[in-house]
């Protein structure tokens, strides 16, 4: 045997880990993961930082100049000096407008650029992950996760980041100015801030605990609601609507109490920050006046200092509010990062030895199981020859669609090999494989746009044709009668929900799309289930017109839809067995097999 037994274990792509197993990530860890994204933004960040320092420097320079003007001119009654100082201050203000503009602009650009790159890489990742990822995560969950989390990041990068950045620099700047102007008063003015930091540190565990309890109870409330609403049929069928209401009241009450606890804990900080700011002002005045009376300080500088206290404590208070948006943004970033960290396990392997073979498709000892699930296919062997029509029949859940998915390499077998034209299917480039195999999926999916967009989707050959030319190609393939089923032919609009089109029409579009690509092997997975019998006949005629060497694989759960098959396979309980022709199959079903 030249074929190596492939030992593939499928990745676990489930994003929602069972409760309690999520790894805890620290804020700093999250920030670190974000750093690589900032790499090509270095220049902008430098410009923004320089501008930010300049802005806060300029804005902080004004109060001290006002102080000097008070001391040197107003108190001495020299109005001319006041005017000179006013002119200087005015110039400073103008300069601050410019630097502040650049600060916001550049920091904002950093945010927008990072967001742009981030969105692109998330989308790119979505494109590179295999179908298994989408099957393991509910589409609704996935969409809301990506949309919500990128939105949270958007808010963060567009708003909070700029504010946070500016606040930090202003706080630092104000502290430096106070220390430079008068280090003694500066130091005492900063003391309440240090006390605040300590106080916040001490209170944090308590606040965190209260919030964790409240979060837990909100979770409990959600769980209770889910338990009852998800099982609403039991509540209704057993006539126990009162149960739901009472149970809800109970958890709602518990939630109410802990929410109040959390609310009170969260609200201790803001008044305290106000208190600290007030104390700082009081210290500055009391100490300032004491120093003035001994000649070590001036009234003008006292007025400047009061400004500085405001400029230091106000942003501090704002930071407390920005902080929560910070934390939600980083939680979102962690979740996005979890997607970015996933890797596709459907990689291309190097060329394997070509087994000269007339078979277009061959399964050799193929077994398959979905992650964490039972084996769906057990060591399956079969071959498809060029130009023939095959039917896969059997009850739902027997493994028909799984077999088809392996033919199109939506998954790799857990063991065994799938050969396409005698070559391991894993050694094909994605593009080449896609050209060879057409797969009309059970659930037709349409992109919003027009019928033309959808027919030509993934088809570069006809992309640049005019509508007239395309119509000709369509009638060459015998598809013109199908196109006539659409009111505006090629220009018929397809909306996002596709509600204007019937399921049958969607299946027709999928059919036209597949035929126009002229693949060597076409799989129709229950593809005509919602098409009326007249149209179904039409489709059969079209299929007959396909090039002689095209192989057809038809999947159906009912026997009468596969009369024209050259060969029928039963796919059942994970096994694929040959059943011969239609008549033979029915005979065998009704009599043969049971007799044995």
């Amino acid at each position: 045997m030249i074929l190596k037994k492939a030992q593939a274990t499928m990745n676990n792509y489930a994003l929602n880990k069972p409760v309690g197993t999520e790894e805890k990530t620290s804020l700093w860890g999250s920030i670190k993961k974000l750093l690589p994204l900032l790499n090509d933004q270095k220049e902008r960040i430098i410009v923004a930082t320089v501008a930010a320092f300049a802005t806060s420097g300029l804005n902080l320079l004004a109060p001290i100049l006002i102080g000097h003007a008070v001391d040197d001119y107003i108190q001495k009654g020299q109005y001319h000096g006041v005017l000179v100082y006013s002119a200087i201050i005015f110039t400073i203000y103008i300069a601050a407008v410019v630097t502040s503009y650049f600060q916001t602009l550049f920091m904002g650009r950093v945010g927008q650029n990072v967001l742009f790159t981030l969105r692109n890489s998330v989308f790119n990742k979505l494109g590179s992950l295999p179908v298994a990822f989408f099957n393991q995560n509910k589409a609704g969950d996935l969409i809301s996760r990506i949309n919500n989390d990128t939105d949270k990041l958007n808010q963060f990068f567009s708003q909070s980041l700029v504010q946070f950045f500016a606040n930090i620099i202003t706080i630092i700047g104000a502290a430096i100015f106070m220390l430079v102007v008068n280090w003694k008063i500066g130091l005492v003015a900063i003391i309440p801030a240090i006390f605040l930091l300590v106080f916040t540190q001490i209170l944090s565990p308590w606040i965190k605990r209260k919030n964790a309890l409240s979060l837990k109870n909100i979770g409990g409330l959600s769980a209770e609601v889910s338990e009852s609403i998800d099982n609403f049929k039991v509540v209704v069928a057993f006539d126990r609507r009162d149960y739901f209401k009472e149970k809800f009241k109970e958890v709602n009450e518990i939630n109410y109490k802990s929410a109040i606890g959390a609310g009170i804990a969260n609200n201790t900080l803001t008044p305290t920050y106000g208190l600290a700011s007030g104390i700082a002002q009081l210290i500055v005045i009391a100490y300032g006046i004491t120093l003035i009376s001994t000649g070590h300080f001036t009234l003008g500088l006292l007025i400047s200092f009061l400004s500085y206290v405001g400029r230091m404590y106000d942003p501090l208070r704002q930071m407390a509010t920005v902080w929560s948006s910070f934390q939600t943004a980083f939680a979102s970033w962690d979740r996005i990062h979890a997607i970015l960290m996933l890797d596709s396990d459907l990689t291309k392997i190097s060329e394997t030895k070509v087994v000269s073979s007339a078979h277009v498709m061959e399964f050799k000892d193929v077994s398959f199981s979905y992650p964490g699930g039972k084996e769906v296919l057990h060591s399956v062997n079969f071959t498809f020859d060029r130009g023939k029509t095959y039917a896969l029949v059997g009850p739902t859940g027997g493994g028909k669609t799984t077999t088809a998915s392996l033919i199109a390499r939506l998954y790799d077998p857990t063991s065994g090999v799938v050969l396409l034209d005698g070559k391991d299917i894993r050694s094909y480039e994605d593009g080449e494989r896609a050209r060879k195999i057409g797969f009309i999926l059970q659930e037709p999916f349409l992109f919003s746009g027009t019928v033309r967009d959808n027919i030509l989707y993934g088809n570069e050959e006809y992309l640049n044709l005019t509508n007239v030319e395309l119509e000709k190609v369509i009638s060459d393939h015998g598809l013109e009668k199908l196109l006539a089923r659409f009111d505006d032919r090629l220009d018929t609009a397809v909306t996002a929900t596709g509600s204007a089109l019937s399921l049958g029409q969607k299946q027709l579009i999928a059919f036209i799309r597949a035929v126009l690509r002229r693949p060597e092997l076409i799989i129709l997975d229950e593809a005509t289930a919602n098409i009326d019998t007249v149209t179904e006949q039409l489709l059969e005629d079209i299929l007959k017109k396909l090039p002689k060497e095209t192989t057809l694989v038809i999947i159906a759960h009912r026997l009468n839809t596969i009369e024209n098959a050259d060969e029928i396979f039963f796919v059942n309980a994970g096994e694929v067995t040959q059943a011969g022709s239609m008549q033979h199959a029915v005979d065998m079903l009704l009599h043969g097999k049971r007799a044995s």
Partner: protein
Amino acid sequence: MATTSTTIQKKKGSSIVGLLKPYLWPILGLASLAVASSGIGLITPKIISHSIDAFVHGTFVMQTLLVEFGAVTLGVFILTYLQSIVQTYTSERVAKDLRNSIADKIGNQSYEFVEKVTPARLLTNLTSDIDSIKMLIGQAIASLISSVVIVIGATTILFTINWQLALAVLGIIPIIGGLFFFVFSKMRVLMKKSREVIDWLNKVINESVLGSALIRVLNSQGPEFDKFVKANTQAKDVGLQILRIFAALIPVITFVANLAMLVILMLGGHFVIGGSMSLGDFAAFNSYIGLLIFPILVVGIMGNAISQAQASYDRIREVLDAKEDAGTGTLKKELEGRIEFKKVNVKYVEKYALKDVSFEIEPHTKTAIIGPTAAGKSQILHLLTRLISPTSGVIKIDKKPITEYDTSALHKQIGFVFQDSVIFNLTLRENIAFGGVASEADLEKAIKTSELGDFITTLPQGLDTVISERGSSLSGGQKQRIMLARALALDPKILLLDDFTARVDNKTEQKILSNLMANYPAITLVSVTQKIAAVEGYDKIILLMEGEVIASGTHKELLTTSPEYVQIYDSQKSTSHYE
């Protein structure tokens, strides 16, 4: 029930103010605390200016400053702290009451309503929509009131100190207000554009998630990425446009505020030199201007929070105003158990779940419905319990349309064992007697029939042990048997089993079925199943595929008439052989 739905209709389109009416007193309390704390806060600059003036005149007493300033700071601290407590209590109270009324409303709705609105959406109503209303009460109301008090108060004080200077300086308020108005009207257009682009982005993401299989079959990740980059670039462009406005707005507002300071320096300096104003008042002017800027901005920002809360409230009202269950019939009679389906269709948007289904079931017989998954088997049972209603066609029980029955009376006589086991966070006794009052004898019989006796003796508190779905160690079979006991505790006339045999082993299954026949001899049994072996002896087997009845008859009849039935039968022979 009809009266409640009409009164509810009347309230439609009510604004969020209506919601707050019952909480007038706490909200008034909140408002007065906000007024008091920001009012007292306005005194601070005054104290500073007095101290400076007193110092200049040599009458400064340190103690007065410490007492006055300390009292004000402490007062503000206590008032804001009280305010935060009141606002926490009020907002949580409103949230709790609103949640309860939503839950009451949901509790009165039909199963179809819940499925249509989706449990996820209802959960959103009960959580994040409530949160934004909480936000309104918890933050917006108080900060709006404080802002207004500060703006009006500071303005008044400035005028009393020096009206000429006040007039000159307060020129900034209309300028900032005008700027804000201008920018926000421009911003609204951009925000709308931004929302549209985000919708576009999300659409591309949605389609690429929903169409993921197709994209991989056609290997069209490249074009998809191009589509996305186009939308993403647009999003970035709009983001940058908004940014440019913001980048200009912030410095300009700062500049205008700074200009006010400059005016104080020039004009105020002039007054101080001329002797018509004290140095302390000069300092006070500076402080009050500093106090004024932020509240003006807050008013603009909070408008957003209000409209968000209103939007959430509108969504909640949709649930609260929804019409309630169509109501029930009045027929209350003891059921015999004859069931009849006549041309019943159930259609979801495009797809038929059941198509032209007709059959009859004689009372006191055993009927099996078999077929592949998604064939519509469970829907038949749901129709029988009125969990869903047919799109067309008639369902009769004892020759009377099912809609004529009082639903409560119907539910008390039809036992339904659902496919998925639903265990509530209650004691075992409460779980089994979930359908209301079950006599001790009924309970005993149900437990015996379900073969739960042995299991119950192993439990620490026996029947009074609290079992729960979350974190329980019950096996699938045990849960399934509890579900059966729950249905049997009703002492039902009709028993519906939805894939009951899937998780119970063969031996137990046979035992339970013979118990059932012995203890409930007159019951009409309808069993949905995948396993033919378990139902070979039934009076009737109905084969369902893709919502259509393909064949019906006894096991023997079907073996000779239906190739599909034979196919399933054979496949199960090979599976059981395989196992």
